[in-house]
């Protein structure tokens, strides 16, 4: 394999991996901030416990996002130096702003939140968390501005063969970016909602299994407490049922938000990257139908044996244009258009590596786009439907005793993660063979594009990229295991894992935990 191929695998792997941690960080951070605010407003200790418990899991996950995020910024220069040179004038700015205006805020104020319990005045302490959460959301905005410029280049002029920024407003209000931002935040909230739901379900189930909670003749929960299991008091039930409902409601609202933003995003993509959407549909010929199932070799170049088995007539047209009759261009129509504008073959120039002079394949890998698109929507919808069912099943205050359902609730945590990953894989693979996708003729800035083949670092050998690919994936795999083991340990420990003072078997005194414990003069209320 060539450096190009390996570097693409590497970028895909480390980025998808990084984006397992990111949505949970963004979503869970916001939810923990809401919970802590509720605690301040109501004084209900259940909210303090929820803040501490979910906050602990948030931090275990957060650090992995931080650690893998550094790779993201470095790898543009390391493996994609031609890309960096080409886009640097416009792409570097949002990256630098992300660090300066978002990462500093996020990490500094999160440090204050972690170590500032009892040390900072209660309101200041809460404000620190909100500021950190705002930082994480702002960071999402900046990185999506950067990514969206690759999807839909705006605000630039070509100068000596490079795009230079001439209109920052256009770059930072790129419609692609605004919609992607909305879509990403709702996707992150869906992840966090499912996380709360699944884990709370487990604890409610566990309380029933251990005989703590029972169910009366009317099916309503009778909350009990255990003298032997640390932390399993009556309040503990309240922690989990509140968390479960909160998570379920968030998951449903987030899905509604992702559906709306996804629809907007789809409409933009039909206009800005018609090939991506044709490939998402494995739509070879022009038409209006949305494919439910297509069979055949969807990766065949000329689409000759792709057969749409089931179609919803008019739906595709509706997704693109809000009507049922406008034909959407298929792959067979689009390929000649691309060939006419960008050539049939890569220029015979060494910067295209071994692809120089070969035929350009304008069709993305259709099984990836077709199934990626469907997995994104399917997993997302599934998670939201499951949340609705969960609310119904728990309407009487606890979960059914079924172990199978409990397992399903835990496995269900993965669905929104799957939707997020599938969506990103779809949108990035659907842009190929371009790394900077050209705008369709007569729309947006013209003739700004870059083929992925010419973006890789020319001075870097395949061996070097293999080294980093192996090293990073090995380390990432090990760390994923470590993270999941730790999360599991802290989840199984229940609230006590984050609040040792609740352990009645070891408890001495539990004074001073109300809001406003600022009088405490401890040097360290929390320590590594």
């Amino acid at each position, binding site marked *: 394999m060539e450096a190009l191929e390996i570097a693409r695998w590497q970028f895909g792997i480390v980025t998808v991996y990084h984006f397992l941690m990111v949505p949970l960080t963004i979503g869970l951070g916001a939810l923990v901030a809401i919970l802590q605010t509720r605690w301040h407003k109501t004084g209900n200790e259940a909210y303090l416990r929820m803040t501490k418990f979910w906050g602990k899991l948030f931090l275990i996950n957060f650090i992995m996002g931080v650690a893998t995020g550094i790779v993201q910024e470095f790898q543009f*220069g390391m493996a994609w130096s031609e890309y960096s040179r080409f886009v640097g004038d416009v792409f570097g700015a949002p990256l630098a702003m992300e660090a300066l205006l978002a990462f500093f805020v996020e990490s500094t104020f999160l*440090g204050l939140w972690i170590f500032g319990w009892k040390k900072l005045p209660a309101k200041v302490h809460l404000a620190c968390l909100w500021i950190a959460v705002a930082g994480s959301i702002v960071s999402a905005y900046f990185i999506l501005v950067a990514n969206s410029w690759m999807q839909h280049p705006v605000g630039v002029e070509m100068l000596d063969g490079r795009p230079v*920024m001439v209109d920052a407003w256009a770059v930072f209000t790129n419609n692609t970016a605004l919609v992607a931002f909305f879509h990403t935040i709702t996707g992150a909230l869906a992840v966090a909602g499912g996380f709360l739901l699944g884990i709370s379900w487990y604890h409610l189930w566990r309380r029933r299994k251990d005989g703590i909670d029972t169910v009366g003749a009317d099916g309503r929960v009778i909350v009990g407490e255990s003298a032997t299991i640390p932390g399993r008091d009556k309040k503990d039930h309240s922690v989990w049922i509140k968390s479960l409902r909160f998570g379920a409601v968030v998951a449903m609202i987030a899905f509604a938000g992702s559906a709306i933003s996804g629809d907007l995003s789809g409409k933009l993509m039909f206009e800005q990257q018609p090939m991506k959407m044709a490939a998402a549909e494995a739509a070879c010929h022009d038409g209006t139908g949305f494919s439910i199932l297509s069979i055949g070799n969807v990766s065949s170049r000329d689409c000759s044996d792709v057969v749409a088995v089931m179609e919803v007539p008019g739906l595709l047209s509706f997704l693109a244009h809000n009507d049922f009759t406008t034909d959407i261009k298929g792959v067979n129509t689009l390929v000649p258009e691309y060939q006419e504008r960008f050539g049939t073959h890569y220029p015979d120039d060494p910067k295209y590596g071994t692809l120089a002079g070969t035929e350009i394949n304008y069709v993305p890998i259709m099984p990836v786009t077709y199934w990626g698109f469907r997995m994104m929507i399917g997993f997302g919808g599934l998670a939201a439907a499951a949340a609705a069912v969960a609310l119904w099943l728990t309407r009487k205050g606890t979960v059914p005793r079924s172990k199978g359902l409990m397992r399903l609730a835990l496995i269900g945590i993965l669905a929104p993660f799957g939707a997020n990953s599938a969506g990103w894989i779809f949108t990035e693979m659907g842009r190929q063979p371009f790394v900077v996708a050209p705008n369709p003729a007569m729309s947006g800035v013209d003739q700004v594009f870059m083929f992925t083949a010419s973006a890789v670092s020319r001075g870097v050998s395949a061996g070097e990229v293999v080294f980093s690919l192996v090293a990073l994936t090995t380390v990432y795999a090990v760390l994923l295991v470590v993270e999941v083991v730790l999360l599991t340990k802290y989840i199984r420990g229940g609230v006590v894992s984050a609040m040792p003072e609740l352990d009645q078997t070891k408890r001495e005194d539990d004074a001073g935990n109300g809001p406003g414990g600022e009088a405490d003069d401890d040097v360290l209320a929390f320590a590594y």
Partner: protein
Amino acid sequence: MDFLPTLWFILIAVLWIGYLFLEGFDLGVGMLMKAFARGEKERRVLLNTVGPVWDGNEVWLLTAGGATFAAFPFWYASLFSALYIPLVLVLLGLIFRAVAFEYRGKVHADRWRTVWDWAIALGSFVAAFGIGSMLALTTTGLPLNANGDRVGGPFAWFSWYAVLGGLAVVGFAVIHASAFVALKTDGEIRHRARRLVGRWMPLGLVPMAVWAIAVALENGKWFSWLLIAVAVAAAVASWIANRANREGLSFMAMGVFLLAGAAAIFSAVYPVVLPSTLNPMWNLTVENASSSSYTLGLMSIVAAVGVPLVLAYQAWTYWVFRKRISAAHLPEPHDFDPAVGNAAGKEIQAAAGNGN
């Protein structure tokens, strides 16, 4: 005409100095975890001196990298791709270190902690050494062709300057961290840290001084030499202050050493940001490596707002966590079991009877 590129060259130098000043001591504290700390209590004291701040410090690196990308894309692209393997190692070091800070105390087993202690110590060492090498090589040159790509294979970047730069940052970080520990802790460890500064400072700071002198000899201006003189004076002042048990003064004087030393290095190489050792025609300079003045202007506005803000709230963080830490302050590590029923739990369940 090249006012903005020059301004951004200065700003990037400031970001690197900020990074070395702040993360310098937390990298150093990481390295001290194995070599200096005696026992679990002391290791926890060390960790907690940087606990609330290390992550914020590390963002200076991301900002320096991002600002280089935005302001000098050709510099960023050539430097980062030429140093591919060293930077992979830096990244691995930073990853292990970050995760170790957070995960070390999460399981109460000696072996678990030992593994993460090594991750912190080695991760900090490798990151400091690699970043030092990178900074040295950007001032002394890499074998770059006309396009700015490295020629000569994966290790063509190697030169003794890479070693010198690595030693310079490692040495500085260890001494700076010792001064920081002396300032931030109490008890026996504070005095040991102070003795370490007194004994090893000359050795620890020499590589950076040699690097500055080497660069200044090559193409220094008169003020490069002036800055070197200031740096040496600051180092002496830091040493004397340390002797006099003035830990705060000693720490700040070491900051002045870094500021003057790094300023000497950056000012000596200006306007070249990355020399080509193959042909001076192919040097990257503030002029030919920079972004358009529109982009630089935009970034200048952002920096004018952002940098003072960052300095203000990071300073506030240090003020919030200003107290000295000693072993006596550390809360007991807390362990817990899964919140699941045992045999006793099952009895309750049986007694409750009615179930569902």
